[in-house]
């Protein structure tokens, strides 16, 4: 509910905002200008919103002020603020989009990149307001399409920044906002065109971009590589994001690890339990334990226990495929037990013994299926040796019978 405010106070607050706007533009103070657009994130602007709802004729003040030349921007910003304060989120978005478009027109005309910070705030706000507007639309049974619109606007902004001048360093931030939109909407394929621009256009030098934006970019593109099961590329990108992420940003580190851990597991690298505990990624505890133990039952149980979470994050299929490494570990354990009993015969494992071990794990597999699994492990170089069908035995190589992945994915 808007706090009570006198007309005089309301007038003062509106005039103050207009003065700040004019001062920021005339002194090319990007930081100060950016603060004037933080509708959803700056609580001090609420007082301005209350003032606008009290005074009701802000347009007159705008016309009389030095900021009148920026009325095309300020009038809709005011409307967006008022609507946001009154919880009319769709109206707020529509007004802000109008303001944003007007701002971009001015931005194009400013030669230097002084207003880049303000543009980035606008890019952020338009996404947030669009998300909230879509929630409101969905709640009244209407089709949510504002976030899609925000995406179109940001593509336009990207085009404005994709030039030779100093404004180009803002392109990665806008790209990251686009990624967030596309991931939210499930239209991830739309990321391709911006990725292509960032990675192939000669005007962009990745090292020039701000560190924070590079981390976010590598996080999202790393996630795309995870979905496509391109593990070396996923490892490179997510590891970059992890290495360059501020150690104080624990929530961000957790987000990166959520995808990096399945990638590392797929290339044979296991995390310490302390890492999983520190960043509250305990859903991976039993997956890691299953890999260490060769416990297929535990792997399947872990996948079932956190099935929805793994499906939502898109790593379920990656984790499921770890089964082959679990089989490898199980057979290796049998080999090590046999080696303790009789080193000369350790390298010969009867398929029936593997059937029994799996039965003990409550996995009902017949000897044909075990032979099939063994043949796959040999074919994919997770085991070295051969299997003798008639004798129903697998004979392991005496040299390195269970090759490590060593940072490479299982042969496909």
């Amino acid at each position, binding site marked *: 509910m808007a706090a009570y405010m006198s007309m005089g106070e309301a007038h003062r607050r509106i005039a103050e905002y207009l003065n700040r706007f004019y001062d920021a533009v005339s002194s090319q103070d990007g930081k100060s200008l950016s603060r004037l657009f933080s509708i959803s994130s700056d609580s001090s602007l609420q007082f301005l919103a209350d003032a606008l709802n009290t005074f009701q004729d802000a347009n007159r003040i705008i016309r009389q002020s030095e900021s009148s030349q920026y009325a095309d921007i300020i009038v809709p910003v005011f409307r967006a603020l008022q609507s946001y304060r009154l919880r009319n989120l769709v109206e707020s978005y529509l007004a802000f989009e109008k303001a944003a478009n007007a701002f971009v027109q001015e931005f194009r005309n400013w030669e230097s990149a002084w207003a880049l910070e303000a543009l980035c705030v606008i890019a952020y706000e338009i996404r947030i307001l669009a998300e909230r507007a879509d929630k409101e639309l969905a709640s009244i049974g209407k089709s949510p399409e504002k976030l899609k619109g925000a995406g179109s606007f940001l593509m336009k902004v990207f085009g404005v920044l994709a030039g030779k001048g100093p404004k180009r360093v803002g392109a990665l931030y806008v790209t990251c906002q686009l990624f967030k939109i596309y991931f939210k909407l499930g239209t991830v394929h739309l990321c391709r065109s911006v990725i292509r621009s960032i990675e192939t256009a000669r005007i962009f030098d990745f090292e020039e971009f701000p560190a924070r934006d590079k981390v976010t970019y590598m996080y999202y593109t790393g996630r795309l590589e995870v979905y496509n099961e391109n593990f070396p590329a996923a490892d490179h990108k997510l590891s970059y994001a992890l290495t360059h992420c501020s150690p104080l940003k624990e929530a961000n580190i957790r987000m990166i690890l959520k995808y990096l851990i399945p990638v590392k597991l797929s290339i044979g690298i296991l995390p310490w339990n302390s890492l999983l505990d520190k960043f509250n990624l305990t859903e991976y505890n039993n997956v890691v334990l299953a890999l260490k133990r060769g416990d297929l039952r535990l792997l399947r149980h872990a996948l079932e226990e956190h099935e929805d979470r793994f499906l939502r994050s898109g790593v379920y299929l990656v984790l499921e495929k770890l089964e082959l490494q679990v089989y490898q570990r199980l057979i290796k354990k049998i080999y090590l037990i046999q080696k303790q009993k009789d080193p000369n015969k350790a390298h010969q494992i009867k398929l029936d013994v593997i059937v029994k071990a799996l039965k003990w794990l409550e996995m009902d597999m017949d000897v044909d299926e075990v032979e099939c699994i063994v043949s796959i492990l040999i*074919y994919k170089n997770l085991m070295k040796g051969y299997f003798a069908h008639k004798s129903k035995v697998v004979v392991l190589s005496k040299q390195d019978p269970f090759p490590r992945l060593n940072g490479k994915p299982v042969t496909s």
Partner: protein
Amino acid sequence: MEQLTKALTSLFNLYEANRAPHSIYKDEAEFHSYYVLLHLCSDNQGESLSLWFRHVPFVIMKSKEMCFARRILRFFRLGNYKQLIYTTEAEASYLQYCIIERYISEIRALALSCVNYGGYKLQPYPLTHLSNLLMMQESDLESLCVDCGLQTSSDGIGKVLLSTKLTSSCNPKREYQKYCELVSERLERLAAEVSEL
């Protein structure tokens, strides 16, 4: 199959556009299972299945039809040729089988690659046993071996596949319908029921 994929995509959009909270439509799980089976091979995935699964309602993911499709997907991805063929024969509906059928020759070729690469050369693999596992006529299996460039021989009892440790994967030079069909009374019965409709 491409048309089926497009039709399914349109259908899913319609489901989403008309979805009431916490509800699914009568045959929705079945149609989702077809989508999974159409995308067993990652090469023909526009959007990866991992991405697609993110937006499928959990109740559909846990349906009988989707659990079947997800198991087939798991077997395919792991290369578990034995279970893929066995489970398809035992549980697939006729339309599910029709979709899976186009992957059968590929999974059979994988089986041959594995047996050829990992088998003991002094104990060649009997084609009779392999044809039972792969649910195909022995003569078709022999023909598939030849088409894949693999050597067979006779050991006095029957035909065997020689293990020559070929490192390249087997790909039949020609796509024959006979390499795709499963020899199965249950599936023949299903086909007959469909043709009576």
